[in-house]
């Protein structure tokens, strides 16, 4: 792991201000904001799959948007190959970082053919010289996304395709620019179980063949186990635990990770386990709890947790957790 990281995120923050009522501004109440992403740092190596895991509202999608330049960070930096992306324009950034969205039924224009959809990024970036090169690149992208023979898909419309095929078209659209990083936001949660494995295997193969790095965003720890090299568990805008997949799964340190792991249903009735069910829901990120932000729901919290925001503790090389109980 001493190669240069392809993505380096340092103390990244995103706070969304809340518009106040007129009365509140007269009374000079302090402006409030939603702390969607609150000081997160991580690195992605070339050819690595990093999973960002957490419940709704933990900030994983906002992180994806920040990586894509769809939102401007309120603080912190994102470096791509050592260069600050704040100095890039959007077009430059998009050539390097592409996104695969959750819902392949909504993310394709229903009036464009598969060829037009996949060729669109080339037009936008003015990359293909001449029609032949364009056809060539589209063909290669479709083939790499597992749509073979590629030509037979050129003139099809999205409604003629199954969910799995649509997701492959979305992936082809991301591949056609030969970007180095793919941000995949729940790419299989809308698909049938029998097809999910196909798409996951495809993404894993792309890592092998093209050396792409993937930031994989999901709430499903079961999928992550098969797929990711490293896992970052997020809670209320903060990464509470990060480490190699097998380490985090076998030896979870943070109580939140432990609870999350215990409730993932296991497809074997002989392994029905004691589940640690956290009551209530993720608190509102406007009022982030003091001290450790997990303490109100934490089954093992003690007094100090209310005051001290726990720093990261290195459990093993590359495995860190932010909890006062971790030694």
């Amino acid at each position: 792991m001493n190669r240069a990281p392809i993505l380096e995120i340092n103390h990244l923050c995103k706070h969304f201000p809340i518009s106040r009522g007129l009365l509140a501004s007269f009374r000079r109440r302090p402006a409030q904001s939603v702390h969607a992403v609150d000081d997160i740092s991580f690195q992605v190596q070339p050819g690595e799959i990093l999973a960002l895991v957490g419940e709704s509202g933990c900030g994983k999608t906002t992180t994806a948007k920040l990586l894509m330049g769809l939102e401007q960070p309120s603080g912190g930096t994102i470096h791509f190959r050592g260069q600050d992306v704040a100095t890039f324009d959007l077009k430059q950034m998009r050539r390097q970082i592409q996104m695969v969205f959750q819902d392949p039924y909504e993310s394709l224009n229903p009036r464009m053919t598969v060829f037009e959809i996949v060729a669109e990024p080339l037009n936008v970036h003015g990359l293909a010289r001449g029609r032949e090169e364009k056809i060539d690149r589209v063909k290669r992208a479709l083939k790499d996304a597992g749509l073979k023979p590629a030509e037979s898909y050129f003139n099809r419309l999205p409604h003629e395709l199954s969910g799995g095929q649509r997701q492959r078209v979305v992936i082809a659209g991301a591949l056609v620019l030969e970007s180095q990083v793919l941000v995949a936001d729940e790419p299989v949660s809308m698909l049938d179980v029998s097809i999910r494995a196909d798409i996951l295997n495809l993404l894993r193969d792309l890592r092998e063949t093209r050396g792409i790095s993937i930031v994989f965003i999901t709430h499903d720890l079961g999928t992550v186990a098969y797929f990711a090299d490293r896992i970052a568990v997020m809670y209320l805008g903060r990464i509470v635990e990060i480490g190699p997949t097998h380490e985090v799964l076998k030896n979870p340190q943070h109580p939140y990770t432990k609870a999350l792991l215990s409730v993932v249903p296991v497809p074997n009735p002989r392994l029905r386990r004691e589940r640690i069910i956290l009551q209530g829901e993720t608190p509102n990120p406007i009022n982030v709890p003091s001290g450790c932000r997990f303490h109100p729901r934490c089954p093992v919290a003690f007094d100090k947790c209310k005051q001290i925001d726990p720093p990261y503790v290195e459990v093993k090389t590359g495995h860190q957790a932010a909890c006062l109980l971790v030694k």
Partner: protein
Amino acid sequence: MKFNPRRLGSDPASISLDWQIDNMSSPAPLLEVKNLSTHFLTDDGVMRAIEDVSFTLDRGQSLGLVGESGCGKTTAMLSLMRLLPPNGRIVKGQVLLEGRDLLRLPDSEMQEVRWSKISLIFQGAMNALNPVRTVGDQIAEPIRRHGLLGARLDNNALDRRVRQLLDMVGIASSRQDQYPHQYSGGMRQRAMIAMALACTPDVVIADEPTTALDVMIQAQILDLLQKLQRELGLAVILVTHDLAVVAEMCDRVLVMYGGKVAEYADVDAIYNEPLHPYTRLLLEAFPDLTQPEGKLVAIPGYPPRLNALPAGCRFEPRCPARIGKCATVDPPLREVKPGHWVACHLVSEQHPIHPITLLQ
């Protein structure tokens, strides 16, 4: 959350709910579905959506109904409730609830069965509630229409019953006058469960009850369902594509493929000694946190179109273990071991466990 059915008084809103448990010793199954077949008449011809679906369900038992999208899970449940769209026809079969065939009841009696005997928790809690009416009002609606155990309730009693139901599912009763948009996803699903339980049904059908929810909320909802099942002696049919949820929740499992029953057995047998190739492949395709080194294998191809079903076994075109007669002869559903039913030519009575090697 404390719910004690015995502490309730004499007014009809709080009729003891443990009456169901008293009947639990009756030998006949609560619900028996026999050879249920439903067709849809469409412009593209007759869609044989489900064919010869049979299962039984006892009080307090839970059945998992699994399969890919379009395999007939939801159609089977809508047929059972007689809630099919106008072009749907039940062409064969019986749905016996305590020995009474629901398919032969006049519409008015069937309406009494819905909610009071069998109720549905719908898919997609986000959209199943009416946005312009309060949650409490919506939970009261089935009781207003059907009464409670044959009695009509006045407004006070109705209000008490709604609060009791909310308490059962873990929602503060002070929130009964709020609107669905003020509820989170998990709370809405709880409200849907409260509504389904409003008229003390014997059977609750939950159609993908946790699909759109986060893992932790999913665990909360499943926990709640299990608790209610235990406490009220409910029989639950869980319709889902999530094999892991079924493994955690159910006693029996029915695997459907192309509108037919592929395998029907106890939950342990399905996961540890699956016999049908489709069941095996489904399990291979499902990620398992406890076996991260395993390999995920997708099932090639797609489920059959229901207006162009294969002549033989419906799974034959996708089956890696097919033999000659699979293409022509549809395998019957046979009981190969006590309580373990399979429809596959490769599994014969003489050799109940045929060594099928599916994957190299």
